[in-house]
């Protein structure tokens, strides 16, 4: 193998390397164009961003289940979320938290809409927490998320 040929091949190899990098840059450009404006973490509010009020959809057949995980005395109690359910210390609530002195009378509501579950704080004194972060307005709850009202914690299981 002559040295000249090896030199030519070396430059071909290097050219291939740069071709690869160029193609990666092109894919990155595409990604950036398709991307929404990225937000740095420090600029993100500590609670999830409130969105405008949704209209309730009637006749949604889907349902979801909320299980209480704390306090121990109520652990395992299950609530089916086939319609809107209110949470609070008032006897008329869907989930009555009579013993939870940190919960407000009508603390929050949980509802399903478009196949998704949302929780909305109804101006409670101590707030509603989603995975340990205080929410404002309504936020989406995903399977496995933990919602805390006063000292009661419930997990969305389905």
């Amino acid at each position: 193998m002559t040295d000249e040929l090896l030199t030519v091949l070396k430059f071909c190899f290097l050219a291939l390397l740069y071709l690869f990098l160029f193609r990666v840059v092109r894919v990155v450009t595409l990604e950036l164009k398709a991307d929404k404006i990225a937000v740095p973490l420090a600029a993100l509010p500590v609670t999830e961003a409130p969105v405008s009020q949704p209209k309730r959809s009637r006749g949604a057949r889907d349902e979801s289940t909320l299980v209480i995980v704390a306090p121990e005395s109520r652990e395992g109690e299950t609530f089916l979320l086939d319609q809107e359910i209110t949470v609070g210390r008032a006897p008329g609530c869907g989930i009555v938290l009579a013993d939870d002195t940190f919960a407000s009378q009508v603390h929050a509501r949980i509802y399903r809409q478009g196949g998704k579950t949302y929780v909305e704080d109804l101006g409670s004194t101590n707030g509603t927490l989603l995975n340990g972060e205080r929410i404002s307005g309504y936020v989406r709850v995903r399977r496995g998320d933990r919602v805390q009202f006063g000292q009661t914690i419930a997990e969305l299981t389905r």
Partner: protein
Amino acid sequence: MSVNRSALGQRRRGHELKLGALALVIVAAGHVLLALSESPAFPRDLWAFLGAILALFVIAHLAVRRLAPRADPTLLPLAALLLGIGYITISRLDVAAGAADRVGPTQALWAAVGVVAFVTTLVLLPTVRALARYRYSFLMLGVIALLLPLVPGLGREINGALLWVRIGPLTVQPGEAAKVLLVVFFAAYLVDKRELLSAGSRRIGRVYLPDPKHLGPLLLPWAASILIMVQQKDLGSSLLFFVAFLAMLYIATGRYGYVVIGTGLFATAAIVAYKTFGHVQSRIDIWINPWQDLQDTGYQLTQSLFAFGSGGFAGTGLGLGRPDVIPVATTDFIFAAIGEELGLLGTIAVLIGFMLLVGSAFRISLQAQRPFLKLFGAGLATILGMQTFVIIGGVTRVIPLTGVTLPFVSYGGSSLVSNFVILALLLRISDESATEAEDDAATEEARRAIESAHA
């Protein structure tokens, strides 16, 4: 398990496959070129080699297709290329090494183990946010991993640094695992406390300071990095931990004050270490003037600089230089070996590759919606970027040399496996955020449809 065929996922996986195919062609070309420099015939193991790299990439690619279909398309091909270039350089150095010192086959084996670790991470971890719940367990595991080499009878000192642990026939670096474990903890902890840490409650002069009780755990990384520096004589990891933590603290709070305080703390520690410890002092002295003791202490660094020099603009060509005279060329000094045979063009290509890799990692962090995913991604990106900077800066005499591996390129099983896990975590974060964004967009659309039906 159902594979959701979203347009975004389809597009991203298509790009990944095309870029990956090109990366494989380049790696195969390098393998052939290396063989041609020895004898004018194609290497006999060409088909076996092609089959092996193809199998490794296809397994990883299919795993992403199945388990993280909407993940970023650039990370896997970039990692494949860097790993390939590293492997070619390592097998190039094997040609000159004695039969007993060959490490190429071991590296190939580790690459396979790395891919297995990559797939396993994707399988075992359907959502990254689940990790945040076990933050203190990760802290404990991370600290144990860091301290493991200090246990008498278990630790191994290699090249003056005590960061190895012997398990049967294997020597592993638990510090590599500690990196990832501690980043999980930092991310979860800082997301919890960032409000408290960014809004000060006490006023001293014109600055508001956070409550000191929240600062306590922040001194822990500083103490840990000093301990690593003193006990394990590992300046590289020490710097890496501290900078990664500081970067995450800054990203979480957006306050420059922490960067100033952190840099001050590190500078103080560095000056004290320079005055107190011989090994730190000799590193700095070599950095300032490697030529004064050319044959002994300055040998490594000067050989590295000679390698870059003799490589010149386009390098000597694969297999045509003498990179084997550089000490520890397969690990710490692999960048110098690349510099000799592929020249400035080759090293700049490797640098751009790392820039794109780390850039993609930061882009994943920016695209994430959830604070934990954002911070975790940024932490992993910082680890990758800093490690690259520390070792490339070291061998090119930009900063004092501290031995860490060049991610994906250097020889070394622990490092390769941990980097594959980092890669899987980044892809998982990317997929998770893209899936949630798609979900939210669908919800929004449904809501609009309902609203227009009511109107």
